[in-house]
């Protein structure tokens, strides 16, 4: 029963997920929208409570056991409490029960998001430039015939998209475009065919209960 019931639910909801793709009738579409937009959000809200509980438990435990860098866990817990208080009393855009401002800084989630989260996210994103340089160095070392081919084609594309490429040869930009449009697209499509069939097979295996690894594997009841 412990495994049969989840498998039964999965079969029903799996089939319900397929039907809206081919049935445009509002009864089916509205049910699908309810499941995706309302039901899933309720589920996510409960899962979020579990998630936050797990996050706090991990860091409390780290502080309790004085594990390596345990001090940073205090930063997380304190900012978690401050953000929660601001969110509960200041609201999302300052419409909460205790809207507070100090100068131009208003205590609400939106302000925190734009002044802290967005710049921090942008900083991480900016680091990608350095990671790309180091990855490119690694990729362009001609250690094998495939790597050499990659190096040569990348060099042609880099030169071809620059004005310098046009100066070297009038054919270089069109050759660059050909590499992008033909061998590159052909390889991508090959992968995408495999992915599409893999998705279909995985979905079928899960809906029909053949794939049970997500239940911890096995076929026990």
């Amino acid at each position: 029963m412990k495994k049969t019931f989840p498998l039964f639910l999965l079969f029903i909801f799996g089939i319900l997920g397929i039907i809206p793709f081919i049935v445009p009738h509002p009864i089916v579409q509205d049910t699908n929208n309810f499941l995706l937009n309302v039901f899933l959000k309720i589920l996510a809200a409960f899962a979020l409570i579990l998630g936050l509980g797990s996050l706090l438990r991990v860091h409390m435990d780290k502080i309790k056991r004085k594990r390596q860098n345990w001090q940073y866990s205090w930063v997380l817990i304190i900012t978690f409490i401050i953000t929660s208080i601001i969110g509960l009393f200041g609201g999302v855009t300052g419409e909460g029960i205790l809207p507070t401002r100090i100068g131009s800084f208003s205590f609400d989630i939106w302000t925190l998001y734009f002044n802290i989260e967005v710049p921090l996210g942008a900083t991480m994103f900016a680091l990608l430039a350095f990671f790309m340089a180091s990855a490119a160095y690694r990729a362009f070392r001609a250690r094998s015939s495939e790597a050499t081919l990659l190096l040569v084609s990348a060099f042609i594309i880099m030169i071809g998209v620059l004005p310098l490429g046009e100066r070297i040869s009038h054919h270089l930009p069109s050759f660059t475009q050909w590499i992008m449009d033909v061998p590159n697209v052909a390889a991508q499509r090959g992968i995408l065919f495999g992915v599409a069939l893999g998705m279909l097979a995985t979905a079928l295996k899960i809906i029909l209960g053949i794939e049970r690894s997500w239940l911890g594997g096995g076929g026990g009841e």
Partner: protein
Amino acid sequence: MAVILLIGLIGVAPPTHVRAYDTPDDGGGSIMVEWHLSQDDAILDGYEIYRSNDGDVYEKVGFIGRNRTRYEDSNTEDGENYFYKVVALKDTLKMYSQASQPVMSSPQWFDLPKLNILIACVIFGGLILYFVYHARKGKELYIRKIAGLQAIDDAVGRATEMGKPILYTTGTGLIGDIATIASLNILGEIAKKCARYDTQLINPHLDPIVYTVAREVVKESYTQVGRPDAFDPDSVYFITDLQFAYAAAVSGIMVREKPATNFLIGWFMAESLILAETGASTGAIQIAGTDRVPQLPFFITACDYTLIGEELYAASAYISKEPLLLGAIKGEDLGKLIIGAALIAGSIIGLLTKLPILNLFK
């Protein structure tokens, strides 16, 4: 000037043969209006579409530019009759067409243009089920070796010998992404190996629903191999639902905990390179896998092994060696063979139509 005067005197020709019909294969609330172009189409501003419930009083419902013969009125009440007129418009000059026959919109139960997709899915699904059935009867199936999956045992063994943890991330996908589900399947198998060898598993998450499912998967895997007591509930945990905050947190874990093996398997976006490069800098063995084509070059560059596209979906079967799952892979391969044959046949036919010899058959 003379042309404008002439138009002012004799007007413009109205559109003809106005036809309105229920938009096919939709969920209702929409009517399609078609007409033949006005003879003066070249000099028109465009066409206005008018609608009436009783055939007497018309209201404007839309405008479309010249040289167009179709308009979709997507604001109708199902089951109610409508009449349509199309007006040729030139400056302030309007010339009304004849009214269309009454028409009503209604929702359909089947989207006919998707029938081919449905048939293809049924055929490929049938193939997969056929091979699963054969596998159930005990027929032995050959599956080619996948380097990334063969390395899993070595990677787990290395972590065990070094006494270091294994980091497994399912990426930034949600539970609705098939890549995330495939990743959870692989997580189950790797968790079993970790349980057997008593290797620490670190599994941080971005999505609370994925976290909840992953926690159960890992717990069940420990139970399956008879080590429920070894399961650490804090080994699977939620971090944040923000993409770059998650990337920063996982990178931090890689640098602080120095896992012997990193599994980056699932649905990834820009954070793929941040994670893969950070992992590579710590000296860990890295096995990555995704079906996101734009992220594959980053993984191939920075990781030791990469599961490309479909290999991600085959991984669970490959690791578990369950005959039923292996049967499904065989079905997938036959599906690819059929698609490949169709592409080759289509290419040959496409090339042949360019040959002059085909003119002989005309």
